[in-house]
């Protein structure tokens, strides 16, 4: 690709920008965007979100890290997203390299490109973005003039399918770790060390995983025989962790997009972590322990956010905001202070209890359209297996409260293909849906709708279900068809997730580094935006597996043994393997495990020795 300057790229892009969909995705001049002087900053980082602008801009972690890096005078951070297919085509046609939004500088000019790994189905976009930038996908083909390619986020806890493309990964919370890495890169620019020496140095930063230093061998049957670390790096990489969330960096001047994005509102992070211990939930294991922000901090942040963004809604975000110990007073204070100016509050995650329905009532600003609950499984037995501490009674009481308070649409989320699931559990979904609808009918409500949505369970690394196989997609497909058949009632609406993408997600979630060449092949043959139903190309993937002689079932549908070496064996979330094994046992015994927040310690292993503890403010 020819070398174009920022000004040339801008001029060329402007010639066709009016013709692409949503051109304001590609500008970088939004309110609160930070334009720093390129020549007066030591390290230039491009923060890359491997999906479209509207998705990436809605992600809180992206907002935090963009402003965090820019809060250091010596660092510059700009944003880049995956251009939508029409924009990509226009850029490739004219040989325009991928550029960062703020300056239009080509990515190639940056010192470091940091990708965020939010879901496995965005892996192809990462490689495609590198290719669009004219940067070799493979680390071995890159030289000292190329940027460092790094990545963090939940999928960094098993990034093995990306080994060979990414120079190093950042595990855990980056608020302290990322600036430390950037300082090392600044030093490297002044006094360059050989590549290996630099990587050894960076491998000693908390949570940094340099895959080159970890060597994997395999048994004849394909399972892993060993993962051996070189002597000068830690044998196990343990995540970085913010000890004092209340004083941690949080931006109150986020970028305000021109176009409507997925979560188009202010976001307040009321707490981090969740200790409810749902056994399928990866986030619940990765972000422990629970740490809350104080009410004073949140109110101060809200005030600054309102002033700097002009948004009329603030979302109280976390993995389960209803569990935040000061939720009621915080909502009341926000509404008291800003309600008059038309500012409302939203709660993105609701528990299945009437307390949360009460909260939803308090925050409901507009017409009562829909309220969502996630029982996750259709029977009590299966809910006990997954440790979703919710009873049918809880749900029906909550639903009754919701109908009484005027809601007319109830949305219920379930997973299909959960470990130990039988036909009874599937029938349980239908049963529960009917009971929910009957509550409405009994209250004399007409025109109610119960929306049932099912997704296909994907076993995730670092959870008690990591050893579980994913159910065969044909069988889950049948179950979903069965549900579609049985939920044909005018009171119901049924939607379900396509099994093909969830299957590929399982392959990559539990995959190892042998998938890397296959991933590259798929990208070269046109795979991208795999999470988008209209873009997903199953044919490419099936050809890819054939081409490399790799059996996808080996990854997705094989039950692993406790003594199998997992592809992510050397990467630690802080929750011990011993705890995950015991939780898996308890799941199979249908035994519930209590939330350590209000009760005794369940021994997951996160707190001891890390200078952290559960932090409640209520």
């Amino acid at each position, binding site marked *: 690709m020819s070398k174009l300057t920022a000004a040339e790229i801008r001029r060329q892009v402007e010639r066709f920008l*009016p013709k692409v969909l949503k051109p304001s995705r590609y*500008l970088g001049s939004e309110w609160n965007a930070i334009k720093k002087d390129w020549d007066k900053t030591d390290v230039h980082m491009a923060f890359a979100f491997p999906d479209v602008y509207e998705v990436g801009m809605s992600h809180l972690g992206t907002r935090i890290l963009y402003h965090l890096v820019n809060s250091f005078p010596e660092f510059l951070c700009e944003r880049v997203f995956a251009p939508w297919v029409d924009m990509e085509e226009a850029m490739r046609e004219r040989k325009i390299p991928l550029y960062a939004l703020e300056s239009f500088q080509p990515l190639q000019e940056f010192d470091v490109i940091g990708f965020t790994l939010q879901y496995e189905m965005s892996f192809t976009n990462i490689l495609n973005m590198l290719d669009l930038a004219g940067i070799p996908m493979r680390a071995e083909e890159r030289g000292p003039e190329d940027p460092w390619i790094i990545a963090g986020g939940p999928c960094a806890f098993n990034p093995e399918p990306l080994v060979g493309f990414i120079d190093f990964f950042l595990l855990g919370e980056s608020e302290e770790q990322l600036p430390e890495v950037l300082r090392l890169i600044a030093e490297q620019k002044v006094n360059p060390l050989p590549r290996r020496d630099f990587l050894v140095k960076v491998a000693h930063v908390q949570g940094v995983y340099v895959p080159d230093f970890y060597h994997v061998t395999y048994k004849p049957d394909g399972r892993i025989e060993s993962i051996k670390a070189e002597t000068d790096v830690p044998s196990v990489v343990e995540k970085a962790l913010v000890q004092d969330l209340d004083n941690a960096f949080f931006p109150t001047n986020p970028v305000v997009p021109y*176009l409507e994005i997925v979560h188009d509102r202010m976001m307040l992070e009321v707490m981090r972590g969740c200790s409810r211990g749902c056994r399928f939930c990866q986030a619940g294991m990765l972000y422990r322990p629970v740490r809350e922000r104080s009410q004073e901090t949140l109110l101060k942040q809200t005030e600054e956010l309102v*002033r700097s963004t002009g*948004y*009329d809604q603030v979302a109280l975000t976390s993995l389960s905001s209803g569990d935040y110990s000061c939720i009621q007073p915080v909502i009341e204070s926000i509404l008291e202070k800003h309600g008059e100016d038309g500012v409302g509050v939203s709660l993105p995650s609701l528990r299945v209890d009437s307390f949360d329905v009460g909260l939803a009532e308090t925050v409901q600003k507009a017409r009562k359209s829909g309220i969502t609950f996630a029982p996750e499984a259709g029977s009590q037995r299966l809910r006990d297996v997954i440790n979703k501490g919710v009873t049918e009674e809880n749900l029906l009481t909550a639903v009754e409260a919701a109908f009484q308070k005027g809601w007319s649409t109830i949305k219920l989320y379930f997973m299909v293909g959960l470990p130990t699931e039988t036909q009874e559990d599937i029938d349980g979904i239908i049963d529960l849906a009917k009971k929910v609808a009957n509550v409405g009918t009994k209250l004399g409500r007409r025109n109610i709708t119960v929306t049932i949505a099912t997704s296909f369970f994907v076993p995730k690394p670092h959870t008690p279900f990591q050893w579980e196989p994913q159910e065969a997609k044909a069988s889950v497909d049948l179950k979903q068809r069965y549900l579609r058949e049985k939920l044909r009632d005018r009171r119901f609406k049924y939607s379900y997730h396509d099994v093909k993408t969830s299957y590929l997600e399982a392959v990559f979630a539990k995959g190892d580094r042998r998938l890397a060449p296959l991933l590259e092949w798929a990208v070269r043959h046109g795979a991208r935006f795999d999470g988008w139903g209209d873009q997903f190309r199953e044919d490419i993937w099936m050809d890819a597996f054939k081409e490399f002689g790799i059996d996808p079932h080996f990854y997705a549908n094989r039950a692993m043994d406790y003594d199998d070496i997992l592809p992510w064996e050397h990467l630690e979330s802080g929750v011990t393997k011993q705890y995950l094994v015991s939780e898996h046992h308890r799941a199979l015994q249908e035994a519930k495990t209590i939330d350590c927040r209000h009760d005794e310690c369940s021994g997951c292993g996160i707190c001891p020795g890390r200078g952290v503890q559960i932090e409640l403010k209520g």
Partner: protein
Amino acid sequence: MRLRIAYTKVEDARYIAHLDLTRVFERAVRRAGIAMSYTEGFNPRPKISFGFALAVGTEGEREYVDIELQRELDLGEVLGRIQEQLPPGIRLLQGRALTQGAKPLMAVLNSASYRIRILMALPILPERLQEAVSAWLAREHVTYSRYTKKGPTDKDIRPWVKRLVGEIHGDEIIFELEVEMGNAGSVRPEEVLASLRELEKLPLDMEELHVKRTGVHVSYQGRNSSPIEHDGFVQLAE
């Protein structure tokens, strides 16, 4: 207090879609700490309304917006505070408090003028250009096929065109075009030039075309005036 404001929509702001423009103004006013009036009903929206949409990518040198505020405030101060909160490319030019019962922009605006810069594909003599323009304007009907979702539809674009002049500057031609606009629709500047190229055989490079809307007007008996009347307004420094 109902405000009518004239503003530019140039540079990066020209890529802001018409539907997104309400949000851009709404957030700017809120950041400025100025209380807006809201619609009644289940989903109250701030009372902000515009004139005819500007195509994405086309610059507007003088566009208008109406914003209703909860309280009476000093006009100059309000405009200044809002300006501080607007993204690059949107500059407030003039503002006026509307009198009670003033009609909304959509009800009063009925014409627009454009300046179009276009590259010549082959050299054109000035006389040839004038001939072509005159010949085109002399036509009573001009059929243009517009491609819509339902396939091509023919429409007569001539009645919409009120004025068209062209002048050669180096290797490009600058056209001044004035069209009628209304609820029944209008004609796009690109369509007029495409038709001129086709019917009068003018070698224009349609790939190298820059359109700017220079103004929107209240046109009455052959006279154009601004929807902001010429008394009591506040002129802002450039």
